């Protein structure tokens, strides 16, 4: 599978759902999508395009926003595709992708404890890194604390 067909595949499949397609350079591609679209896009990426999940990075953003960036790559291709999902801090909730990709389980737990984002339908939503008696509502990587 080459990058061109991946690109056309994605664009055909989710033409109007992709809010922004940004190529930082030929190897680093950022895609902005709606939170509701995450599940179908990830399913498509993982099952149809056979991408490999790398990790998700959450970023606390100004203006009451929180971002989760899901990074994917493809076997034998240099491209890293990053799906960006923006959440409002008033409703920090997103569908878990761990049911689709097992490898996402830990990072979602980690994001949950460090940023306070809730992952719906996560198979095992408990603390990963912090002690179990870590105060509720204290999210160390958030900037408002």
């Amino acid at each position, binding site marked *: 599978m080459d990058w061109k067909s991946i690109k056309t595949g994605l664009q055909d499949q989710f033409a109007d759902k992709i809010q922004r397609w940004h190529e930082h350079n030929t190897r680093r591609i950022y895609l902005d999508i709606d939170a509701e679209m995450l599940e179908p896009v990830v399913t498509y990426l993982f099952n149809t395009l056979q991408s*490999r999940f*790398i990790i998700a990075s959450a*970023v*606390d953003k100004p203006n009451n926003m929180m971002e989760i960036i899901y990074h994917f790559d493809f076997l*034998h291709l*240099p491209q890293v595709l990053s799906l960006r999902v923006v959440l409002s801090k008033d409703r920090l909730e997103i569908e878990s992708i761990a049911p689709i*990709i*097992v490898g996402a389980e830990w990072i979602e737990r980690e994001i949950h404890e460090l940023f306070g984002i809730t992952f719906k339908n996560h198979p095992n939503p408990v603390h990963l890194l*912090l002690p179990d008696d870590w105060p509720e509502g204290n999210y*160390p990587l958030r900037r408002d604390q």
Partner: protein
Amino acid sequence: MSTIIPIGPYHPLQEEPEFFRLHVEGEKVVHLDIELGYNHRGIEKLAESKSWDQVVFLVERICGICSTSHPAAAINCMEDLGAIVAPERAQYIRAIICELERIHSHLLWVGLAGHFLGYNTVWMWSWKYREIVCDVLEKVTGNRQSYAMFKAGGVRRDLDQDDIPWIMESMDKMKPVVDLFRGAVMDDPVLHARLKGVGCLSAEDAINYAVVGPTARASGIRIDVRKDDPYFAYPWVDFDIVVYEEGDVYSKAMCRIDELYQSVSIIEQCLKKMKPGPIDLNIKELPPGEGIGRAEAPRGEVFHYTLSDGSNFPARYKVRAPSYTNILSNEKAVIGETVADAALILAAVDPCYCCTERLTVIDEENNKSVLGQADLLKLSQAKTETLMKRLSL
């Protein structure tokens, strides 16, 4: 009733504390719980209060074994952010350091794996030969670990042209060593029986758990950042990706040993191709924006993501170490194996070995440990012995 075997969090040979809970029924492992966080130092947060230069030093201290792969990913990340291309000589030097580290790390693994199988002598021997690499690193970078060589846009120290013959010589010394260890693993029927077919991770699971590095390559997945997303001097040198199909512990071991040859050859090629020239661009600033950096650590792909606001401190720094995904995959690999093998399987992904060194069986009812780490170690070593017996008698 299933018994719980906690692994951790302290043991003499261990490095950092982590905690596994093996649920066992009889001899079979039925479930694995992993508890992390004893080592959680909040590096991602700390990175936000360090300047770009300091971030390189900080990520170097994520882990001492991979102490150059994190900086490698970090500078890849910064160079991606600032669209910087470091000078050629710097790229060669970087590749050399990375490969030296791979040799040292793989030898370290071989030694500790030997220890785990009951061959303490192997441990001592491989660490003895590891000193060759440490010497080279000390001469080139000034330190045996934590080399502080990399910076965005170049390297901090040049490699002395006069040292090259000596480094070449050291690399020549490495080859018979690798032959020795390869021969030991290949020809030893006990090891075959002990390692083959144990702890298999299928290619499908490898993708599912997003494993990387030798753990993935041993399952037949041909991924290697050095080839897929070339960085440093890797596009200019010739090397192969070592792939084994079975996904068992034997494949993982062979994968690592074969990579030693590749690393030695890459270093030699780099030393030959290197020309005198500038080693640093002395960059001025990093623009606002995002950057992604990847590097192939001895244990697999290291991934860094950063967000810059244009100041000299990152606004967000995300690190994904290879063990992060590899350790989780144990959840799959150990199921259905015996306790004696479990320790070995956990160790096979090279999760900074230590993680596997802390086992105690806990009786679920009164939560008292009844089987210690040493016993598991013994179980593991005993199995080798049994096999030896079966094969030789």
